[in-house]
């Protein structure tokens, strides 16, 4: 009784939540007649939309840009954040608490308050339409540092001491012990970082003015603006191409994310 009630609620919620995605998927295979007739399921499934979208905008190029940007930003974020987190977890020095607070205070500075000067900075560095503009500003991340520090702190102090007795340098301890010990937290932060940078919208809109490094999100906006009046099926095919990589990544790493992020969020 209780069980069937739960399943009913779960299934209704799942249908409602997932409907937009399913619907987009369905529309991407529809002919324009189906779309005009407001079909839910394509009567005559076709791949024409996918073919057309690849012709009309350089979507593969955008996808590749997004991959490069998201991977580089994630990697840089992992390296920069973990170096800082290592200090906050293991290397005591006078004033460390103050520096840590300085890091945390950046959480209170929202993107919109820094957006204009950052845009001007990127311009004066000559980084417009350059991967650097899309990646480097995201390398330092207070949230990431904090999350990794929380995980690093679970490394037993005895391991640190044992490594000192055995003669490891700080850096050796870092990459031979801490990194393997906390590798799940790197996976968590990595997935999170990839999802957020892949999905960035406003910043790439500002710093890209042509197609060279433009990411797929901006590509999607262009596609929508160009094609909306004529062909929704084509636009949806573009949408599906854009969301598939992140949805796969999310499905694979969902458990990991849930565990890892909760730890960083609360403890």
């Amino acid at each position, binding site marked *: 009784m209780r069980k069937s009630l739960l399943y009913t609620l779960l299934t209704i919620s799942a249908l409602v939540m997932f409907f937009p995605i399913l619907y987009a998927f369905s529309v991407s295979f529809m002919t324009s007649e189906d779309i005009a007739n407001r079909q839910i399921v394509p009567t005559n499934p076709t791949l024409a939309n996918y073919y057309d979208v690849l012709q009309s905008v350089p979507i593969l190029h955008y996808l590749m840009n997004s991959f490069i940007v998201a991977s580089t930003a994630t990697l840089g974020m992992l390296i920069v954040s973990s170096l800082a987190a290592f200090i906050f977890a293991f290397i005591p020095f006078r004033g460390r608490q103050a520096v840590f607070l300085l890091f945390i205070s950046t959480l209170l500075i929202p993107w919109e308050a820094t957006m204009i000067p950052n845009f001007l900075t990127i311009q004066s560095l000559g980084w417009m339409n350059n991967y650097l503009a899309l990646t480097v500003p995201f390398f330092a991340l207070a949230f990431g540092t904090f999350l990794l520090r929380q995980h690093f702190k679970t490394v037993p102090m*005895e391991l640190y001491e*044992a490594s000192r007795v055995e*003669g490891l340098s700080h850096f050796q301890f870092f990459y031979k012990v801490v990194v393997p010990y906390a590798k799940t937290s790197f996976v968590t932060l990595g997935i999170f970082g990839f999802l957020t940078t892949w999905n960035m919208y406003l910043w790439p809109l500002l710093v890209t003015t042509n197609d060279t490094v433009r990411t797929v999100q901006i590509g999607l906006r262009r596609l929508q603006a160009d094609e909306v009046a004529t062909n929704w099926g084509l636009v949806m095919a573009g949408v599906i191409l854009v969301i598939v990589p992140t949805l796969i990544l999310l499905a694979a790493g969902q458990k990991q994310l849930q565990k890892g992020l909760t730890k960083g969020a609360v403890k």
Partner: protein
Amino acid sequence: MSDGQVTLKHVTKSFDGSQFAVQDASVTIEQGEFFVLVGPSGCGKSTMLRMIAGLEELTAGEIHMHGRLSNDLSPSKRELSMVFQNYALYPHLTVEENILFGLKVRKVSKQEQRRRCDEAVDMLGMREYLKRKPRELSGGQRQRVALARAVVSQMPICLMDEPLSNLDAKLRAQMRTEIRQLQQELGITMIYVTHDQVEAMTMADRMMVLRQGEVQQVGRPLDLYNHPANDFVASFIGAPPMNLTTATVDNSGTLHVPGAPRPLVMDQPLPAEQEVQLGIRPEHLHLEPQEDSDWELPVHLQTVEVLGNETLLTMDAGGADWKAKIPGQWSLEAKRQAVLYLNSSHLHLFALDNGKNIGASLSAPVQEEVTL
């Protein structure tokens, strides 16, 4: 030749600048000695070990290792190995990789690594789980891996911080013997921290008893047992602990014990008109007069527990709670009067104010062969 020797001179540690974690400790630990630091938790024994390891800085004093002043030497340069309470095994490495980890860092040749690993593995009998990860091992097996790590390092000094406290009682007894044998085979200096006086008594060549950062006594286990320097050492060493009660010295130097029918005449002059603590070990109390019994004390028996071939009595002796350990199986009724017999040379006297032993000359001499 002072390889493996450790000398502490007035070693002092304070974390907050006002309270002592370790107070002015001085001792020389000889090459090849099994030296145990023992005391209740928070007594400073681990802090002392960590200072020797170089994991903690000294507030004052000197540490000499291998004959050289070593205060500022980093842990890895002190030529020592260390076994931690939770073993400090790297969870992402296999047993074998754990054992060889330190050697790789020190860039020991592959061949030599192999040889030392084989040797340690045979010594500790752990060949069958070399390829496993630490989380797949039992507590005793992890313990062995930690020992093997110390063995392969071939350092002249090994430090151990409560290495047996996470094992069950049976395994602990077995590992005690193994660690002792290992130390003798390798001929290394062992500095071993424990809160368990049984471990200290059974393993140590010499031991140091600590309490609140203060060194209470240093010496061979039986010396400490027979000649405790103060009431703390007396009650800390031995199980059940030494019985203590307050007695009064009258103006003629005779000792009056509450509840006792006749006073004790000491063959040693005691300061008159004061209170002292009188101590006797549970195993020196008897229910029947012995050949050498020269004093007796009426008590009220509270409980009687027969433990195999030995009987443990708890009793009220003139207001103090005492215990007696008597060989044999005694089926006695509890909650009744009884008389205990003893030889007054087994009595210990301690000053009431600072607990210092004031009756050392009363005690029987140590039989040398026992200690061999």
